[in-house]
């Protein structure tokens, strides 16, 4: 695509994309560390991850300010306008994902003092969720609507995993009330991961809007775009 005649504007839009990527990378790391702290009962890692959340919040504020500045100074149109409005929404989702990572860390800290964690498949679910988030951000950078659509389709997989997890853990808690504390915490984590997948899906939907100018939000996921 042709470059903007106004080079400074071009650079500012590139800078906005860069900020989103940095925020996305940080949030991805937060989820990774949160789930790792849970898997390895690493309290210190969980605490360090919680402390780092303020950096995510800082990006949220900075990117909002950058978007407002671009809107006010350049009156963007068409795909530039869609990039900026998409960025405003993506940061909100990423900030919420950061909060979910903190929530997972808090449960990890709770569970680190409980010796007998249930053997459930949270790591596999966490890996899938992280992949969704990473691909939604890749789709943003590459302006790849097809990749974004595949992320939207993946959301059903996570919903199914969460439903399965819920039935499984609930069954175990019913049979053995001594695991209720652990089981409840793990159900919370499962729910957090399911919510993160929803945020990744939101980001992917916004990427489709940004690239195609077409909203698929609140509709059933189309087969192709």
């Amino acid at each position, binding site marked *: 695509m042709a470059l*903007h*005649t106004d080079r400074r504007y071009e650079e500012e839009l590139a800078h906005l994309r860069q900020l989103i990527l940095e925020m996305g990378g940080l949030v991805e790391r937060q989820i990774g560390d949160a789930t790792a702290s849970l898997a390895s009962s690493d309290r210190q890692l969980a605490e360090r991850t919680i402390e780092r959340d303020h950096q995510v919040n800082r990006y949220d504020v900075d990117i909002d300010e950058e978007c407002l500045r671009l809107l006010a100074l350049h009156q963007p149109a*068409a795909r*530039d*306008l869609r990039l900026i409005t998409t960025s405003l929404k993506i940061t909100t989702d990423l900030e919420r994902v950061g909060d979910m990572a903190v929530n997972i860390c808090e449960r990890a800290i709770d569970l680190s003092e409980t010796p007998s964690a249930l053997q459930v498949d949270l790591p596999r679910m966490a890996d899938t969720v992280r992949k969704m988030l990473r691909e939604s951000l890749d789709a943003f950078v590459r302006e790849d609507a097809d990749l974004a659509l595949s992320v939207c389709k993946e959301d059903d997989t996570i919903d199914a995993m969460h439903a399965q997890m819920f039935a499984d853990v609930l069954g175990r808690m019913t049979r053995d009330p001594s695991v209720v504390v652990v089981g409840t915490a793990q159900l919370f984590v499962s729910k957090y991961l399911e919510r993160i997948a929803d945020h990744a899906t939101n980001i992917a939907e916004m990427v489709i809007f940004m690239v195609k100018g077409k909203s698929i939000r609140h509709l059933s996921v189309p087969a192709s775009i």
Partner: protein
Amino acid sequence: MLTQIHNDRPSKNGDAAAAPRTKIEARSVDFFYGTTQALHGVSLAAGVCQVTALIGPSGCGKSTFLRLINRMNDLIPGIRLTGEILLDGEDIYDPGVDVVDLRRRVGMVFQRSNPFPKSIYENVAYGPRVHGVRDKATLDEIVETTLRRSALWDEVKDRLGTSALSLSGGQQQRLCIARALAVEPEVLLMDEPASALDPLATAKIEELIHELKERYTIIIVTHNMQQAARVSDMTAYFYLGRLVEFGATATIFTNPTRQETEDYITGRFG
């Protein structure tokens, strides 16, 4: 006279989703200045009581097209037009058309305000006089109603006898709009009407355009993209004498269909 002004606004009792009736329609218009072809196969329909913005880089043909709609190009030697331009379904280039009457029905406001070196009152009364209105009371009524309609009355009602040239640039431009309205046009053509004005005067003109479209079909040429976005219902993008894209303004400025349009409105041009 003004009480009988033609109101083209489509019935509100009709289907709200229906497109407005076509007021101006260009059909496959080719236009030449001598051997230079300025327009290539332009087809475009402007709806009644809508604002249609013509945008595009300098030399793209948008002003040429605008001036064809009230035959302002007629006096240029060596011009040639093929295709048709219809006003209410009738070809305005038909040999039987009275050009003076056409220009009464299709008024024009230019980039630079050009009031006559006469009083404010005389500027507005001039057109109706030319068209035969002699009665002082009728002229007074036309002057007041038209100046109100062009949002100038409150600023000039106490000095109608003073020279129009004593007005500010923005006021002069609104006076020129009043002068165009005084002869009861149906269509207003505006060629960059606010490009020489400061932001406040520009805002007044834009607000006025919004009010005028209740009664008139407006076609506006502007280099100010944001102005096109703010004031128009439909936008036409011209490039190198061709109509590249024509569509609802909200769509053109958020999600245009053609890459050329996208490049132009996002500043990726040239």
